[in-house]
């Protein structure tokens, strides 16, 4: 019963963080804010992995997976930042709507 309660409490918070990140990604017009929203969603997934490892007892496996997630996250964020910087130098703005309009 206690482990169910632990799992459900973590599930609630993971869901709330994913909802916040998703809301940020959908509603923001700023490219940097969009990346911060994505980062928040990755954080929620990392927490979910750690909780899964804690509850199932496979701590070592989960830690190796989290390390992989973190490495991929850093590379994705670095490349995305490079792209955002390129867009800023090209358009002079970080507004996502401006890029959308320029593509149409």
């Amino acid at each position, binding site marked *: 019963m206690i482990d169910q309660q632990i799992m459900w*409490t973590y599930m*609630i918070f993971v869901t709330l963080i994913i909802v*916040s990140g998703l809301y940020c990604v959908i509603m923001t017009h*700023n490219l940097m804010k969009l990346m*911060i929203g994505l980062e928040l969603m990755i954080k929620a997934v990392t*927490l979910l992995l750690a909780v899964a*490892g804690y509850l199932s007892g496979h*701590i070592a496996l989960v830690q190796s997976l*989290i390390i992989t997630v973190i490495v991929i996250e*850093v590379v994705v964020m670095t490349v995305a930042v490079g792209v955002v910087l390129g867009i800023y130098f090209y358009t002079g703005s970080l507004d996502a709507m401006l890029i959308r309009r320029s593509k149409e």
Partner: protein
Amino acid sequence: MNNIDLFLLLVMIIMVLGTVMTSGLLRAALGLAVVSAVLSALMYRIGSPIAAVYELSVCAGLIPVIFITVISLTKPLKKDEEKQESIDKIHRFWPLPVLIVLIGAGMFLYKPVIELKQFMTVYGPDVKEMVWSIRQTDLIGQIAILLAGAFAILILFKEMRSK
């Protein structure tokens, strides 16, 4: 789960809301660093200390630095633009806390019966053996992704310089 874990989770969700709803990019990047630091404390408490160290050093250290570098390279908004931006932001983001409270309350009241197969520590391989021996293919993938990222950055900045 004890009170410290619950406190850390509450701090984390408050910081997440602050990060999403703040008007300044710099404050958002710093909020993200705090979220990462709290997450690493949580991970340490639930038995993943090595992953927690990675989270603290890379996600709370490196990524906010990259974000802050990019923010420092951009031009700040003028005062009237900033005022308009913050008003727009309030219009766009006010439903988020309400949504969070509603979803949180709904999930708290709805408690499903989850069948957990196992709740004990499995005495298997340790992290060192798992990373370097059992999941060695992951390492190759990680090296490939790091190289891909490095080449992507090189090409991007080369193109930017040529323009």
